[in-house]
């Protein structure tokens, strides 16, 4: 089986992450409950005629994907795989509201056509004129991870050499407000802002100098805190590692009651490693873990953990192996191992 190397990682998020030069140099402190991403200049990547039917998620996805290909110096990937929890929610809201407003008549085609979850992957392929494998995963907070697993399998089985993988979610207009209302009624609901973003990576079976390796990934739909520890230990053993091999752990804490899962993992296994958190910067959305993937790749490449994400005083001189752990509402756990 072939290894998976990361040839590029690009992120559009609620921080200034789109520039590949800066690595969380000027962090934006968000106090609002709902925060938009810092949008790049779309016109640099998409013609106005093509962009006019695209909502935020599609535009962010197309631009992040194109930049990831540019950085990896790749013209046409062998596969395009996207993950999105809510898909094109803005256009979905638009056409559903239009049906109600017009008493179930006069359904205009544009928002309907653009509202499907695979619109982003399709628009990337259309722009590249790429007829290769194209797939979209919509599995809640495991959407990006599912896309990664698919890419990993394609590369390991030698069905592809270079795969473009991304996680995208947009805020939309209405639905997110209802989710926030529900969270506000919880005794300890999500405390970080709700947000949006797109993060893309080119994974390749070709080893490049200084390329980061996607060592492995595992997803677990449901497990108790104790079961999770056992599964994580098995996962590390499977990769010929133990907990001592981990130099830093990136956690998806969002301030809700289910953060106990992160605490349990850290106190049980990783009390002496650098602890990184990011959702106070990126906000929460179904594919926020794609931002963590971008963050982890940059930490390994630059051998530096920005102070805004480091949550303890442990800063290793050398960071060789990173573990990413994310879960949502105590379910849909994922572990991703990145290695230099």
């Amino acid at each position, binding site marked *: 089986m072939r290894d998976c190397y990361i040839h590029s990682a690009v992120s559009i998020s609620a921080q200034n992450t789109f520039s590949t030069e800066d690595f969380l140099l000027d962090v934006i402190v968000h106090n609002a409950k709902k925060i938009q991403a810092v949008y790049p200049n779309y016109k640099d990547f998409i013609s*106005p*005629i093509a962009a*006019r*039917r695209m909502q935020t998620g599609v535009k962010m996805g197309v631009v992040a994907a194109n930049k990831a290909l540019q950085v990896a110096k790749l013209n046409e990937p062998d596969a395009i795989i996207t993950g999105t929890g809510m898909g094109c929610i803005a256009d979905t809201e638009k056409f559903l509201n239009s049906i109600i407003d*017009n008493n179930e*008549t*006069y*359904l*205009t*085609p*544009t928002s309907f*056509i653009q509202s499907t979850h695979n619109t982003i992957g399709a628009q990337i392929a259309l722009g590249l004129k790429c007829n290769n494998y194209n797939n979209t995963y919509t599995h809640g907070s495991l959407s990006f991870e599912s896309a990664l697993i698919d890419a990993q399998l394609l590369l390991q089985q030698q069905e592809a050499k270079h795969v473009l993988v991304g996680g995208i979610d947009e805020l939309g207009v209405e639905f997110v407000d209802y989710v926030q209302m529900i969270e506000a009624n919880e005794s300890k609901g999500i405390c970080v802002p709700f947000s949006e973003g797109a993060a893309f990576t080119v994974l390749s079976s070709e080893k490049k100098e200084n390329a980061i390796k996607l060592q492995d990934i595992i997803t677990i739909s449901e497990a108790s805190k104790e079961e999770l520890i056992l599964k994580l230990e098995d996962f590390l053993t499977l990769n010929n590692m133990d907990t001592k091999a981990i130099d830093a752990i990136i956690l998806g804490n969002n301030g809700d009651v289910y953060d106990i899962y992160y605490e349990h993992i850290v106190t049980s296994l990783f009390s002496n490693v650098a602890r990184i958190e990011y959702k106070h910067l990126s906000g929460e959305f179904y594919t926020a873990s794609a931002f963590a993937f971008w963050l982890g790749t940059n930490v390994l490449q630059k051998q530096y953990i920005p102070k805004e994400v480091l949550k303890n005083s442990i800063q290793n001189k050398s960071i060789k192996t990173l573990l990413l752990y994310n879960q949502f509402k105590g379910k849909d756990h994922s572990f991703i191992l990145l290695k230099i």
Partner: protein
Amino acid sequence: MPVKELREELKEKIIAQLNLEEFSVSDIDDDDALFGDGLGLDSIDALELIVILDKDYGIKLTDPNEGKEVFKSITVLADYIAERTNK
């Protein structure tokens, strides 16, 4: 409604409904071709225009060949609507 006002209204509706963010009403001449070399509209836009005709003016366009002629320009479209709504 006078035809001149109807033309302006149609331009506003087309810009809004078809997300022609780069255009303003003054950028669209009454006799510009809506499809092809003019505004560059396409088949999805044609469907949007059919919905505008039906929803806003009560005109159902069912013959594709008629559509080709009706959507030639703002002038032709406004005249077509005026003929059917000013009776």
